[in-house]
């Protein structure tokens, strides 16, 4: 059964150990057609993610815990703030033997101010919009193992924990952010 909606062939560069560049033609599958329209059923999305992860964790209980990456304008249309807090808490409490699920919120606003990366407390939310504080409350506290990578990225070292939230990060930075704590071959160079 064909589940995808189309394919596309792209060229991917990779480096050989002798330094030369290899170009590979790669067929990629398109599973959804992205579009921006209609409402923001955030609560339903949290509940759907919850149900999917319950099954996944049941199957892989010893795995590294799931990371849920939620990209949003923050303006939920299907619930109150209280309901969102409850749903996000329910999602974040799902755990493997290695720890709880991390809910990483990437909040997009109309603000033209500089991005905010991994705030530690609400006072760090110096700009954003009316939903930014809610996004902070919905986000996970990141485990200490992320601290070194974040401190290197933000050039800011803290005592305590970072929150899994970024506000208005440009696309190029988002890729770097998602690598923090997940790239197994780029350890901390300070130690």
């Amino acid at each position: 059964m064909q589940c995808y909606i189309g394919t596309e062939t792209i060229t991917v560069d990779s480096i050989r150990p002798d330094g030369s560049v290899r170009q590979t033609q790669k067929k990629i599958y398109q599973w959804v057609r992205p579009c921006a329209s209609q409402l923001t059923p955030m609560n339903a999305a949290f509940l759907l993610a919850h149900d999917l992860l319950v099954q996944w964790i049941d199957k892989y209980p010893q795995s590294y815990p799931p990371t849920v990456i939620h990209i949003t304008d923050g303006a939920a249309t299907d619930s109150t703030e209280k309901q969102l807090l409850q749903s996000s808490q329910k999602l974040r409490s799902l755990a493997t033997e290695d720890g709880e699920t991390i809910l990483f919120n990437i909040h997009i606003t109309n603000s033209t101010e500089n991005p905010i990366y991994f705030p530690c407390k609400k006072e760090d939310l110096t700009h954003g919009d009316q939903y930014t504080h809610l996004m902070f409350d919905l986000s996970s506290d990141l485990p200490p193992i992320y601290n070194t990578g974040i401190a290197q990225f933000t050039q800011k070292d803290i005592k305590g924990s970072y929150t899994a939230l970024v506000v208005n990060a440009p696309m190029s930075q988002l890729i770097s952010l998602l690598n923090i704590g997940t790239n197994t071959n780029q350890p901390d160079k300070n130690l």
Partner: protein
Amino acid sequence: MKYYAVSIPKFGENQSEDSYCIHAEKNCFVVADGAGGVGIFAKEWADTLTRAISSVEQANPEYIKALKIKFYNEREQFLDLNLDYFADKFFQEGSASTLVLADFGVDLWEMEYHFYAQGQSILSEHNQQFLYPLKLWAYGDSGIFVYQKATNNIETNLGIQHFVNAPYLINCIEPELNVAKIYTKALYVSKGDIVILASDAIALYLRLIMAFEQKDEEMLQKIIHQGSAFSERVWLMKNMQNLPTFYQAIQSFLQNMTSDEQFSSYCQFLQTQNLIDYDDYTLLVIII
């Protein structure tokens, strides 16, 4: 010199991604831990490293780079003919492994004879025994330990960074090693000393035992404050009534190295106690 080696896969799996090789003719012992989480062909790359590198002199960045290029080219040819989903994973992520070596370099008996013949024996200050030169080399979080019986001293490549950071890996698509992260050591050992090489699960367990034995509170506190699974393990070990000494821990492993099944059973016991991670287990013990 006697040596014992065993390597078993994760419980419930058929193949380990660890590799070891005893280059008996050169008295060189090698362990590599292929990283299953990076790219593909981890086992093959670990096997390549352990078989091709039979001395500390060979474990140099140029020789390893040549091995990388050969390994990569062979896989590239294969994947070009058998292109599938995994090919891209190889070209983007490569194959990665740790590597540790204990290199005695020469035949010990021959050397002893040579010293007698030449009248240039190297004798230990402690017990007037022969001292045999040993070179260590390591990259990543597989461990080497040298237990010197006369002094109860333990030499190792593992430090706090191996509990905090992702390990450095020899990756076949990365042209250069980070030479600053290569551990090397030259020392002498004498009869009765024990040299241990192990992949990370056992190595990090032994390193914690060592930290407790040496009352290395600074290291233990750093691990506790990290808030990781290792932190819980340190707490657990702190509260254990009969935490073994390093020597006792080695003896326990040795007693259970009589067969793969026995070793597996012992590792499973340690794992259910949360003293070692769920992983492939490789242990090589050399008794001088």
